[in-house]
């Protein structure tokens, strides 16, 4: 059962202010109820499917200079300072 308290808690977890929580309660509950059919699956193995990459196949951990001027993509004021909102 998904109620208002639960949906608001989920909203908190994903950092979204749910302005109309009612809208989501019914839909999320209906979908979760559908997911409940996973309870009826009979598994004959505990195996899960994972994409594994061998450590030796990872690229070398070496320094490569960045060729893109990332600094150009930052929001700056006219004095070339990076501007950020004030947190209080």
């Amino acid at each position: 059962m998904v109620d208002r308290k639960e949906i608001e808690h989920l909203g908190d977890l994903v950092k979204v202010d749910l302005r109309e929580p009612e809208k989501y309660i019914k839909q999320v509950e209906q979908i979760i109820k559908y997911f409940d059919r996973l309870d009826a699956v009979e598994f004959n193995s505990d195996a899960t499917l994972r994409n594994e990459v061998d450590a030796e196949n990872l690229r070398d951990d070496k320094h490569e200079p960045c060729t893109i001027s990332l600094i150009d993509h930052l929001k700056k004021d006219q004095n070339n300072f990076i501007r950020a909102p004030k947190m209080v």
Partner: protein
Amino acid sequence: MNLGISATEFVSQAKAGTISVEEFVAKTLDRIKLVEDKIHAFITVDYQNALAKAKEIDKKIKSKDKVGTCFGMPISIKDNICTAGIKTTCASKMLENFVAPYDATVVSRLKSEDAIIVGKVNLDEFAMGSTTEFSYFGPSRNPWNVDYVPGGSSGGSGVSVSAQECLASLGSDTGGSVRSPASFCSVVGLKPTYGLVSRYGLVSYANSIEQVGPMARTVEDVAFLLNIISGYDSHDDTTVKNEHVDYTKDITLGISGKKIGIITQMIGEGIDKEVASATNRAISKLQDLGAECVPISLDAVEHSVAAYYTIASAEASSNLSRYDNLRYGFDFGTEGYEFKAFILKARSNFGPEVVRRMLLGAYVLSAGYYGKYYLKAQKVRAMIKAQLDEAFKKVDFLVSPTMPILPYKVGEKIDDPLKMYLTDINTITANLSGIPAISVPFEISSSGLPIGVQLFANSFEEKKLLQAAYALQETTNLPEVPL
């Protein structure tokens, strides 16, 4: 000038000098201007650069300089694949003005072969949806009947290829997002094996299941694009270091003597009658070509929708946490904020489907429910893979309708997310297991709407899969898009 030619035909004509790239691109851009009001495939069109690049390529052809294998082919790119200098919005208000500082590997590979990116195409916000109706910029429309959805989430890709606004497109396929619009818009769409194509620069939604996939008018065109975009990329450690394969070579080999399994769970109950009978006709044609078709039961498919949406939502809720206005997002100015209010304000820019999936993801990953949902979903995934491994010991390919239903009207399912999720039943098996699958346009229904047929092969057997798809394509005779 015929804009409806295949990409392969374009390349051979441009190479021979019988068409001017500039003229073709200019006509393509005119076509976009003409039809966009009706179908809304594009979010951004790069008029200036496309034409400038076309002129440059014509010059290279004339002076017999080395030209890339695309010869100025106009291509559209789904707007969740990063392109330096052109906005990448993910069809979200959250990234309305985001310009990536780099090209995705698939984009840089296309550019290095002289493909021309004409623009970025529409999708459901962050690729979450099956109809393109969840785009912040408004829905795309099906060129076969503009009252109907084009499928999704790569709807803009399907529409732009079908409506002759480009020769090919790249989409991304997390649960059928390339194959659904391919089927609904009557174009070819391939979901490659997980690890065949780099995801570097694809904005993450559900990393463990998504792949970039080519869409075009013919199977040969899709093979041609796969030649360019596939292969190991040091920026994506999930890509596999396989030997390079030429997917266009021997594509006409045929399927005589091959064995094809008909997935009984995908063609039985709940399937539209016209879709089922079209698929049966496709199966008969494959038999006429010398393939042996046998029914194959994959009972894990029945649990696939629940497993898929559990896993995709879980990964989405984690991936989308980065949109907090610190790393990506809006410019709020310098006034003072309390931290939580700041984050909430930034994240109020997500649309309803994205919020729904984040809520679902947070739910299934919650301490008390992890074992009940997420772990079981992962086990279903292993079960599907095990059943497919068994199936591929007996058959070379599997076949099903791509979509269980015909395209439906815009707005018809938008208020019933579960109903919409259930339409993905035939496509998500390939994503959960990682195997490749392709949608081939097969027929047009009595109401004038496209029907696609889906073929699957075992992992990294794209070459065989494209040969089978080509054989099926050669049995069809489809009308021009009525737009």
